[in-house]
């Protein structure tokens, strides 16, 4: 079976990768300080805001950005849109790093991180805990992602037997890879349901799990659009625009449905009175609505034929999901007591460094392993 994917033949060390490496090294230094001196010396998180930048950006948003593989698997295998499969591996790779680093980020956000191994000791599980569900599910999903991606590694090293074995069992991994994100992406919303009145009325709903998982799928499509556009542009590869337009259409209807449901739900609960108040929650609600509608409008109109507009729509979707998550976890969250939170410089450097490392690793992987769709300049694989 000839591979439908190919390596990107480009130098590993470029000015961009060097800059990314420097940022990642700075983050590593602060992570070292965090373990040496403790959370309080590094981070601004406090008793009112125990979840700060690391959880919200690295874990919640990071894992949603890692939903590219999940969203594409849903589309390609469940809805049988096989033509889109060249987009699968790059999306999977993004998800791989998004999730792996989300799991790593949890480790340095934990106060007593040396207890983390207890996640593997079932007799210590609290089966009523949403966090347990998230932790276990993400843990398993990271393993599944690596296995899903493993054929690319086996191809590179020429281990045909192993690759065939992995391909034979791929249906199981794909099934798991679709089911697991449904579980933990919705649980990231469930984790907020218990906050009750601490969440602004515009955000406090029992439908948080549904809103989280569906917006994560939209972000998954968004990240595929952005990533494919950036890669094809930066590495001067043939555009995958024709495929991306199909993805964008699905994404657009998802966003419209999401926004309608979101507003309908707010209205149904009688919380509409808050949408004109001047507060962070209100601004966030309008921002995410406008971003979603902008993206949907672009993706359903003639503007989608212009790669630039489509790229902006993809970015808008990523911003939309990020705004919704930052608002749910920080802006629309009002802890009891007069607490305030803004990330410290070291916190920011660590988060930026983690993202830089993600991008760096992605760039290295696409150059070392067959990840990108093999249609290079002449589109040989697409007939």
């Amino acid at each position, binding site marked *: 079976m000839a591979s439908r994917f190919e390596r990107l033949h480009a130098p590993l060390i470029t000015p961009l990768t060097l800059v990314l490496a420097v940022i990642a090294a700075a983050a590593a230094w602060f992570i070292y300080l965090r373990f040496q001196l403790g959370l309080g010396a590094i981070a*601004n998180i*406090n*008793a*009112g*805001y125990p979840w700060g930048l690391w959880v919200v950006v690295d874990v919640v948003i990071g894992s949603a950005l890692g939903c590219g593989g999940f969203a594409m698997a849903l589309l390609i295998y469940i809805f049988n849109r096989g033509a889109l499969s060249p987009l699968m591996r790059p999306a999977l790779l993004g998800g791989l790093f998004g999730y792996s680093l989300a799991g790593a980020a949890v480790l340095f956000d934990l106060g007593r991180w040396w207890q983390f191994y207890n996640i593997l000791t079932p007799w210590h599980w609290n089966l009523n805990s949403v966090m347990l569900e998230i932790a276990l599910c993400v843990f398993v999903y990271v393993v599944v992602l690596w296995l899903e991606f493993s054929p690319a590694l086996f191809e590179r090293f020429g281990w045909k037997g192993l690759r065939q074995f992995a391909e034979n069992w791929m249906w199981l991994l794909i099934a798991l890879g679709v089911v697991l994100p449904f579980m933990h992406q919705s649980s990231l919303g469930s984790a907020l349901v218990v906050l009750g009145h601490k969440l602004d009325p515009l955000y406090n709903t029992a439908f948080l799990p549904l809103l989280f998982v569906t917006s994560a799928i939209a972000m998954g499509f968004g990240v595929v659009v952005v990533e494919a*556009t*950036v890669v094809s*542009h*930066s590495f001067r590869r043939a*555009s995958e*625009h*024709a495929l991306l337009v199909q993805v964008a259409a699905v994404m657009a209807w998802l966003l419209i449905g999401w926004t309608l449901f979101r507003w309908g739900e707010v209205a149904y609960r009688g919380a509409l009175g808050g949408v004109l108040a001047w507060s962070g929650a209100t601004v966030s609600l309008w921002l995410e609505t406008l971003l979603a509608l902008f993206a949907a409008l672009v993706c359903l109109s003639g503007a989608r034929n*212009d*790669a*630039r507009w489509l*790229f*902006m729509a993809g*970015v808008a979707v990523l911003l939309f999901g990020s705004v919704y998550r930052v608002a749910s976890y920080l802006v629309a969250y009002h802890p009891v*007591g*007069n*607490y*305030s*939170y*803004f*990330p*410290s*410089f070291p*916190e*920011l*450097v660590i988060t*930026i460094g983690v993202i830089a490392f993600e991008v760096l690793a992605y760039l290295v992987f696409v150059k070392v392993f067959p990840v990108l769709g093999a249609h290079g300049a002449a*589109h040989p694989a697409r007939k």
Partner: protein
Amino acid sequence: MFHAQPDLETVLGDDPDAPIARFGNVTRRQIFKFCAGVAATMGLSSAAGVKMAQAATNPSRPPVIWISGQECTGCTESLLRAYHPSLESLILDLISLDYHYVLCSGAGKQATDYKHKIMEERRGEYILVTEGGTPMKDGGIYCKSGGHTHVDLVREAAAGAAAIVAIGSCASWGGVQSTSPNPTGSVGTHEVIPDKTVVNIPGCPPNPYNFLSTVLHLLTFGRPPALDALNRPRFAYGRLIHENCERRPHFDAGRFALEFGDEGHRQGFCLYKIGCKGPETYANCPAVGFGDVGQGTWPVGVGAPCFGCTEQGIGFEKPVHALADLKTQTPPSLYPGVDAPKGKGASAAAAAAVAGVAGVAIGAGAMMLRGMGAKSDEDKGASDGEA
């Protein structure tokens, strides 16, 4: 002071779990456990526990004469409710309680005669326990027994006593009947016999284990435990209730019950503001508790402010709802507001980092869009043909 002690082994026998009839069928193991527990209560070494077991099982154990004056028998009731061991099976036998109004098997002249017999035969050996205040006004006529005033009975018994223990607040300083205007001129035992050392075990009632521990210390070492300026054993009255109170963290944090049954009271907050006298009362109530049913079984533990029963001038004297005079830390009149801002704002470096990242992202996006514009014009024909 007491008889030489025989070898413990010969007294107790070999089998640790065989009941010893002479001690009310208590086993040797139980005696050791009890004495070791008492020694631990007083902060003594485990070797002292062995000595106590020896003293407590001494066949010629010293008699105890218990005289009651202006009292309510609450101290006796309290002592009867000591459960490790139960008083009747161990301690009454061990200390040979030879005279006690309430617990004597005999009565009237018979009992009084026996008291006199012991006082003569064991002169200089017996322990005198006084319960209740002693009225001094009008020649002490307000409390009499067998035609004699209580003050005379106390002086008579004290003359030949090896040691004197005043149990309860009434015997310690006069207690409730000495409260102003003190119509009977009630005073504590030590004021009746100023030339003798009286160990005071105040409390209304006192914790039975404070009394038992003191008596066993007397039996064991021939002298009372370390006493404070008011002749109270320091192991029991050395610290303020406030110091060991389980509600102390609430005091320090400024969380107070403001009236009975309010939110703070139901939450178990500090009772200082509804008149708890713990901050000016010396006793070990929070550490030992009452009734042998576990931690928290003392007045403050169940939500009733301490009323200072062990402290002269406070118990029965200060109004129940009056604030205690704080002997240690005074709570600040102004606590930091519960609404004080917590958390750090944005530092210049953090703000700069956010702005920098946003700037780079927007810049990179703009650059890319511009580059794409140039490129899409180039290959427009190609992509159209493909579609």
